[in-house]
C-alpha cells in the first residue's frame, strides 16, 4: 500500500516499539477504534472503519455485547519484525452498558464511521402537563 510518513522517516525507518496494537497480530484481524458516548436517553457507539464499504459490514448484538466485523476494500499491509502481514478484515466486540434496549438498536454508516444508536430502557417516560 502507500508509503508511510508516520514516523516521518522517508526510507523505511522502523520504530523499536511497534505503533500497532498487538491484538492485530494475535487475532490476525485489525482492531478498529471505537468510542461510546451517552447522549440524552441513548448510548451512541462509534466505530472507525476506514477503507470499508457499507455492504461489507456485519453488526450483531446480543445481551451485553455488540460485535462488528468488516472486510477492507484493499488489504492493509504492515511489517512486524521483518515479516510482512496482510490484514483483510476488522473485528471488534464492544460491551454495551446495562439498561440497553437492544430491540430498538439502529445503525448508520457515513464517512467510514459506523454509528450504532442504542436507546436506554431506563430513560423514563415524558409526562405531558395538563
Amino acid at each position, binding site marked *: 500500500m502507500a508509503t508511510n510518513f508516520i514516523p*516521518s522517516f522517508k526510507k523505511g525507518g*522502523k520504530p523499536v516499539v511497534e*505503533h500497532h496494537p498487538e491484538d492485530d497480530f494475535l487475532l490476525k484481524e485489525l482492531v478498529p477504534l471505537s468510542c461510546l458516548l451517552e447522549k440524552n436517553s441513548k448510548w451512541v457507539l462509534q466505530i472507525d472503519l476506514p477503507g470499508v464499504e457499507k455492504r461489507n459490514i456485519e453488526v450483531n448484538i446480543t445481551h451485553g455485547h455488540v460485535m462488528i466485523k468488516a472486510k477492507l476494500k484493499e488489504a492493509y499491509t504492515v511489517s512486524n519484525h521483518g515479516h510482512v502481514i496482510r490484514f483483510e478484515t476488522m473485528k471488534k466486540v464492544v460491551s454495551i452498558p446495562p439498561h440497553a434496549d437492544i430491540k430498538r438498536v439502529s445503525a448508520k454508516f457515513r464517512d467510514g464511521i459506523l454509528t450504532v444508536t442504542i436507546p436506554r430502557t431506563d430513560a423514563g417516560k415524558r409526562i405531558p402537563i395538563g
Partner: protein
Amino acid sequence: MMKRNSIKSSKRIPSKPSVLIIGIPGPSLIGTLAVSYLVHALDMEIVGEIENMEATPVVFIDSGEIFGPIRIYRSGSTYAVLSDLPIDYEMAVSFSQSVIDFAEKNGIDMILLPNGIQAVSKEPGNIKTFGLSTDEKLDSVMYENEIPKFLTGMIAGPDATILTNLKNSTVPSLILLTQCNFFFPDPESAMQSIKVISSIIKRDVDLTEFKTQMNYLRLQGRQLMEDTLNILQQEREPQTPPQIYK
C-alpha cells in the same frame, strides 16, 4: 522554568517570517498528521532533537542512526518539531520550554501549533480552523489568512501548560484549532490544517499523496490515537470552569 514577567518584542512579523511548526499528538492526531506530511512534502531535513528525560524511553533507527522521538526539521526558514509521543503532564513544562529556547536561539518570528477541537457535526468540504494567538501582532496573520478567532472555550491539561508557557515567552504563537472528530484519526481535518499552514508560511504543499493515503493513515494511527486519548481523557475531566469565571 516559566518566565513570569517576560518582555514581548515589539518588532512586527515580517512578510516572510521564520516559522516553527509544532506537531504533537492531540485530538484526531491533527498536529501529527499535518506536520508529518509537511516534513515529507517540503522535504525537510532533520537538524536536531529535543531530549526529554520524562519521556518514555524509545528510539528510532534510520540507516543505522539512532533518533529520539521528538525531532526538529528544517527547510529554508521553516522549522518543525515533530513528536511521536503524546505529551503528558510530566513532559509538558520541559517540552514547551525546550521549544521556546530553540525558537529564541534561532530567531523564530512565529510558532504555529496545529491542534483539533471536537465538532458536533462536521461538514465535509467546510471544515473550519480557528486561531488563538498569544500576541496581538498575529491578528494581522489571522486576518490575511481568513482565520476566525477562537473566542470562547477552555483548554485544560498538558495543552494548557504548553499554551501558558508559549503565552509567557517572547516568541509570538498561533494555535490553529481545526474542527475534527476528536476520538479517531481525522486526515480530512488534518488536510484543512495543512492548507492553513501552507497559506501562513506562503509555501505550496501538494496534497495529492496525502489524499490517496487517508484510509491508510486512519488505520496506521490507531495505536497512537489510543495512547493520546488516554492522556487527553485525564485532562477532559474538569469540563466545568470554576464558578468564579462563569
